[in-house]
């Protein structure tokens, strides 16, 4: 088997699978010792600038149509999923602050979250419970799903728009502002994680890579 054959196989595999495949799944079809990363890189290179591109979403590989063709591909006008302002804000807070509790989301928004808001995001399979905070009451913590990354086409949470800047600005901290800025707290209680750490939910699959966590 030549290397070209392996490339063809990976191409066919990703094409036939339809859904994103991780490197282990791809490697399972290749001869022992095949350089999966190199093959994927070569394949991605081959499709660069074409109508189809090989992309990494949520850590997995998948073929997608090129973004710039969006307007010409749209056949009938799609009705985009209408999210309320509250839902979008909540989604953003969960995405950037995960793992985050519901109370922390409310703290950031400064208003109670209506039940429907969380339900919509859960229903869309964009957020999911990821564990429990090790604090009194052991509140559930929330994070985004693989589905979310797939739908917005992000390779990982680290690719959320502007995440690095926000983190550098210290704006990714879900604790109450008074606690964060209160006397003697700034930069001192950063390692409160011992008491307020999170425990993952049972075997809920691998947790998404945390983009940021500032506690």
């Amino acid at each position: 088997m030549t290397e070209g054959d392996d490339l063809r196989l990976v191409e066919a595999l990703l094409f036939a699978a339809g859904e994103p495949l991780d490197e282990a799944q791809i490697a399972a079809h290749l001869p022992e010792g095949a350089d999966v990363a190199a093959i994927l890189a070569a394949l991605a290179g081959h499709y660069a600038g074409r109508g189809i591109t090989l992309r990494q979403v949520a850590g997995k590989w998948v073929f997608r149509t090129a973004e710039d063709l969006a307007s010409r591909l749209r056949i009938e006008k799609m009705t985009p999923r209408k999210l309320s302002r509250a839902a979008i804000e909540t989604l953003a807070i969960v995405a950037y602050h995960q793992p985050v509790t519901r109370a922390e989301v409310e703290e950031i928004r400064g208003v109670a979250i209506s039940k429907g808001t969380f339900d919509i995001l859960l229903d869309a399979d964009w957020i999911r419970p990821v564990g429990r905070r090790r604090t009194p009451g052991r509140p559930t913590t929330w994070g985004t799903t693989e589905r979310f990354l797939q739908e917005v086409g992000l390779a990982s949470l680290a690719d959320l728009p502007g995440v690095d800047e926000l983190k550098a600005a210290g704006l990714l901290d879900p604790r109450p502002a008074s606690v964060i800025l209160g006397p003697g707290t700034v930069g001192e209680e950063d390692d409160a994680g011992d008491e307020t750490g999170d425990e993952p939910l049972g075997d809920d699959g691998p947790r998404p890579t945390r983009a940021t966590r500032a506690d």
Partner: protein
Amino acid sequence: MADEEPFEDPAPAVDPATPLVVALDGYEGPIDVLLTLARQQKVDLAKISILQLADQYLAFIAAARRLRLEIAADYLVMAAWLAFLKSRLLLPEPPADDAPSGPEMAEALTFQLRRLEAMREAGTKIMSLPRLGQDVFERGAPDGIEVVRRVVYRVTLYDVLKAYGDQRRRKIKAESYHLAASTLYSMDDALKRLNELLGQSIEWKTLVSYLPPEIGDELLRRSAVAATFAASLELVRSGRIELRQSQAFGPIYVRRLPEDRQ
């Protein structure tokens, strides 16, 4: 596409010229109101005048109250907090050890506003990412990957050993299990013996005298007593003999019924 997202509808506009236009309905809580008011200052949120903001908010709430609008508690809590903050900022007094100073409170509020603003912008950016099924498309009709399921049988050494043991055990039972012959004196024996002996006499005799004489084993003897007594009852029931006992635990006498009374 961003322009299709409803969140792009801005929060209710507060006209800078007439800042007291009250419309609480569209706001997502007091912080949202504050953020909207802060935007009017048209400066970086980090440099915002908290004092000015507090005034604007308090005026906003006061106007709402004048109009007898129903105001949710959290708006009022915020108003109270801002009034307190304002007094702290205007009349600096040494705070108690654990109480935050006016500037610290102002900083906390600024942080909260900046954080919410950041999240709001992040939400906008997320929603304007090319979306799967709207801007970017997945493979329409994947050929699919054939999944071949193969049954593999597994067995462990324990399975084999246990099966062998079970099998042997079953076989042993099937081959060798039989009831041990009873060594006790049976009621059938007693019936037979009584019938034979009573046939010869119609005199009253003790039941004990009908026991087999050759019994030495205590257990066997007791079984013979029980069996003979039971047999005698059976014979009474069938009208062959009669029994007599004059006192409790006294000797039991037995005799055959005369033929005419049978």
